[in-house]
């Protein structure tokens, strides 16, 4: 009963005209960034960050979450029509979706993908709302030492399982923490490393850092490419009837949908994993248990429903560790943590205790955004997909103008705009050299908590503050996470020999 009360209260909390309006603006933005390959969800989140300054918590986070939640819904359309995943997690959809489009069944594939995405997103939210109250008593038993190690584990895990080699991810995470040390020290308020600059008294800002790391390198790539991404594929053969047939197929394969969404939600809960993993796991599981496994890869609609259900369901799962522990379940959630910081909120045990209503409200934003995006795309996908014909030479400078204006608008400080380019150079280097950028932003966001909790732990418990049962378990998990890649490599080599 309490579960349904939570759901209905969360729903009513979101049903405010200003929040609905914000979601209506955020959803097309997210869909466009999802559809155009090369513009990732991270870029969309980074561009939207400056606009939440001065907003209330729920509308501000609704703007970020609504656009982030629907990225993969948009990405499925380019995966099917063009054979190019709009976002990396849509890659599994290409395997069967693109052959379907080539066989003249693109509308069916799109309908199935959009319905599976929309309902998958709602499924993930139902899981999230079920888990949050159960987690509350557990996370409340965490003291400052446990929270310190949890935050440290968050940065380490996202460095280990993120893109690129682990060692480079760890360097990125440590660099993010180091960059956040500029400005007032949290416990003594001493201005640290300001080098006589007024700007550095407050330290580096999250917005120029996020935009520099995640938007500028993509703009350079887009501008250098120049041409439109849609060199192949056609949307002319897609009919509304076909799309509706595809939608109906999701209900026909309801068990596959439930199974794939569950995989998505569960994989999403594991910090840092989500991303590209869950759609492929769902695809493999669907193929393994299918009676028509031999036709997978040749245009089987099950091969579209499975990855797309898990894709959007994982975002609900990824919100679980983000809200409960302050550890992001996916790279997008790392940037979302930046949004929390801007709005003066700190996800984690205290957040769950004091803002459970906000947490459930955010879950409802994800659910409603998914449903709205699915409806919009089912009706308009054919037209929205034409955006992929926009040339890079047009998109890149227009987005750059929005970035420059948005960055300046956030604090009215021209130095922020300059730092977008400084961090953009760092982001470009990191991208080219295969350094994961998510640990850097996460390290940056979590540093204040890490340093404060370390300080409190040392003062309250002394140098042996880590000798507490939960802390030792977290340290064990942290060490296991660090050594596991090399153990698994050796095991694989041993099996191969």
């Amino acid at each position, binding site marked *: 009963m309490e579960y349904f009360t939570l759901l209905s209260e969360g729903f009513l909390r979101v049903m405010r005209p200003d929040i609905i309006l914000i979601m209506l603006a955020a959803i097309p933005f997210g869909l466009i960034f999802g559809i155009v390959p090369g513009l990732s969800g991270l870029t969309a989140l980074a561009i939207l960050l400056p606009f939440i300054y001065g907003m209330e918590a729920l509308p501000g986070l609704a703007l970020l979450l609504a656009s982030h939640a629907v990225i993969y819904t948009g990405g499925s359309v380019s995966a099917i029509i063009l054979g190019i995943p709009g976002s990396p997690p849509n890659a599994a959809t290409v395997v069967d979706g693109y052959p379907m489009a080539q066989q003249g069944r693109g509308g069916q594939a799109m309908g199935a993908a959009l319905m599976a995405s929309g309902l998958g997103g709602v499924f993930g939210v139902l899981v999230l709302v079920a888990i949050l109250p159960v987690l509350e008593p557990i996370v409340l038993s965490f003291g400052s030492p446990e929270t310190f190690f949890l935050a440290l584990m968050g940065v380490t895990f996202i460095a280990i399982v993120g893109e690129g080699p682990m060692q480079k991810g760890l360097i990125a995470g440590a*660099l993010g923490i180091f960059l956040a040390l500029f400005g007032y*020290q949290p416990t003594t308020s001493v201005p*640290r490393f300001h080098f006589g600059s007024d700007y550095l008294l407050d330290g580096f800002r999250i917005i120029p850092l996020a935009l520099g790391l995640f938007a500028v390198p993509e703009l350079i790539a887009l501008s250098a490419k120049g041409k439109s991404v849609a060199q192949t594929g056609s949307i002319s053969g897609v009919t509304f009837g076909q799309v509706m047939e595809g939608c109906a197929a999701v209900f026909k394969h309801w068990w596959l949908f439930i199974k794939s969404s569950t995989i998505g939600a569960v994989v999403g809960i594991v910090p840092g994993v989500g991303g590209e993993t869950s759609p492929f796991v769902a695809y493999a599981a669907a193929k393994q248990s299918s009676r028509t496994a031999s036709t997978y890869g040749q245009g089987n609609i099950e091969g579209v429903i499975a990855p797309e259900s898990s894709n959007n369901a994982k975002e609900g799962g990824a919100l679980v560790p983000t809200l409960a522990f302050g550890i992001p379940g996916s790279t997008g959630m790392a940037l979302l943590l930046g949004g929390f910081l801007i709005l003066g909120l700190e996800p984690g045990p205290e957040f769950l205790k004091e803002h459970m209503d906000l947490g459930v409200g955010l879950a409802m934003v994800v659910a409603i955004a998914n449903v709205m995006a699915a409806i919009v795309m089912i009706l308009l996908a054919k037209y929205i997909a034409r955006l992929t014909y926009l040339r890079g030479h047009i998109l*890149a400078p227009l987005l750059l103008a929005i970035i420059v204006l948005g960055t300046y608008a956030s604090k009215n400080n021209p130095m922020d*705009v300059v730092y977008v380019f400084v961090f953009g150079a760092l982001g470009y280097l990191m991208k*080219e050299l295969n350094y994961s950028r998510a640990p850097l932003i996460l390290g940056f966001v979590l540093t204040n908590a890490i340093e404060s909790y370390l300080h409190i732990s040392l003062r309250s418990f002394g140098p042996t503050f880590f000798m507490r049962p939960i802390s030792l378990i977290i340290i064990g998990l942290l060490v296991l996470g660090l050594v596991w890649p090399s153990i698994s490599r050796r095991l694989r080599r041993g099996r191969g020999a």
Partner: protein
Amino acid sequence: MKKLEIILPALIIVFTLFVVGAGTFYYNYSMTVMRFPYFVGVVLIGLSAWRLAQAIEGKRLPGEPEDVQEPTTESMAEFTRTALWLVAILPAVWLLGYLAGIPLYLLAYFRAHGESWLMSVSLSLGALAVTYFVFIVFLRVNLPVMPLGFQ
């Protein structure tokens, strides 16, 4: 790429040493202020030095692609051109203000990249409208709108 693989960790080491050194010897911060920077600095320098040594040896890390292509002179020139065009928005808004600088930058960019006059002018005017109505009127952002020296 090999040079860049060496340059990035080397830069991180120099930057970290400089900042921690300034905190210790120039600002004379207390141990409470410097404890955490020391800890992070040691980890960061250790990891970067390890990576630097590997890069000098030419060692490939697990999970990295095998055939990384070295940038050619043409690709470097193309990158420089692209980057300079993007960075050019900074002097444009600094010298001309946001309201005039952004549309004029866009107009120059589109024309230089082969877009038609019609397309370039329409998009630039669209950007001008968005800058004015969304940022100045709706969001009430105090954008420097006049060219340098005339505000």
